[in-house]
């Protein structure tokens, strides 16, 4: 106990001398604060960068998946479809009487074929030809349904 008191006294006696010997510089605390803020700022930037990177990664994955899905989706060969429908139409017996709906379809087909031939003549790109072949396919489909109905009615 008295030894302890002695120690404290001893320390108390020595303290003023060592305290004055190690007086911290005046800018220490501002430097500590600045360093601390700097580290916080760096951590925040690192988090932001990581988040941004993750977002970019997710977006890149989504785009890749979309492109892959688009590539995987079977595209319709409208030209082949139209030609197949035309052959089906040829195989049907010629109707005895004309049908107004069939006439409308034929009239629109004639107009479309004129446009399609003009497109080929000017060397149009496939992306310009494709919608025309699609429309031809739709019209042939419509004409085929009318002709089939006519054949069915004539059999009845």
């Amino acid at each position, binding site marked *: 106990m008295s030894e302890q008191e002695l120690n404290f006294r001893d320390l108390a006696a020595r303290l003023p001398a060592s305290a004055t010997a190690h007086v911290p510089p005046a800018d220490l605390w501002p430097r500590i604060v600045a360093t601390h803020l700097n580290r916080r700022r760096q951590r925040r930037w690192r988090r932001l960068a990581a988040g941004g990177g993750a977002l970019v990664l997710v977006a890149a994955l989504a785009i890749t998946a979309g492109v892959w899905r688009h590539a995987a989706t079977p595209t319709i060969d409208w*030209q082949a479809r*139209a*030609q197949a429908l*035309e*052959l089906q*139409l*040829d195989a049907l017996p010629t109707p005895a009487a004309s049908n*107004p*709906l069939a*006439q*409308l*379809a*034929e*009239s*629109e*087909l*004639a*107009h*479309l*074929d*004129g*446009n*399609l*031939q*003009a497109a*080929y*003549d000017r*060397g*149009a790109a496939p992306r310009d030809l494709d*919608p025309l072949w699609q*429309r*031809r396919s*739709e*019209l*042939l489909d*419509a*004409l085929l*349904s*009318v002709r089939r109905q006519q054949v069915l009615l004539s059999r009845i």
Partner: protein
Amino acid sequence: MNPRLVFASILLLCATTATAASPSSSLGLLVDSANAQTARDGLRVLGATPGSVADQLGLRPGDVLVDINGTSLANLGADADGRALAAATFNSSLADLAPTAPLRLRVLRDGVFLAMNAPLHAAATSASVAPAEGAGDPPVGGGCGRISTFDVAPRSEHLYGAKILLLDGVTPGPTGTPSFRVSAGTHKLLVAENIPTREMGVGSYASLRSRRDNSKELTVTVKPNTTALLAARLNTEKAADFAHGAYWDPVIWREIPEDCR
């Protein structure tokens, strides 16, 4: 080949036809004029317009036109733009024919040569549809008629497919039917347009988002034994006006006589 000569010949040939872009078109023949590589053996037939001279001749997709009236179409090569010279030769041979001259074609089909002949004046035949009798007359009571979404409307008039959502407040059926039998008289339709996005001139995403609620009402008076053909007319000047739906209108673009029984 002189383009003016070809143009004059085309005009001469087209004098008897309603609509024609080139001599082959006036026959109702669709040929692969763009690709010289596929024209080694002759000019490849891509299609024949149903009901046309080419169709009546018996031409079909996949046929190869080897010669026309003795002029060979094989191994003619390409023009400066890489297009098949066979097409130009075919068109000029066709344009040089007198209107009453016979058209003689030698055709290669599945490895077999076929001969096809027809008088050229047959090209004058063209499909035309008369309006329904009594069109514009007041509706007659009794009888029945049809409302059809049969999509054969001319795109040149900005007419596109339409779908009937409700017919007099009821979902019409059966599903997939393009034509609905109705009593002669006035009917109320709720119509949705089926205009392809590419015709809008805007991005597909924006278009799809704004076209969710795209139905419109239309009152139709159906005459007895008449089919009223329904279409969606694209208002090209307001093609981007999705918010108010001003970009389209449902229309009856044609009435044709048809027994509705």
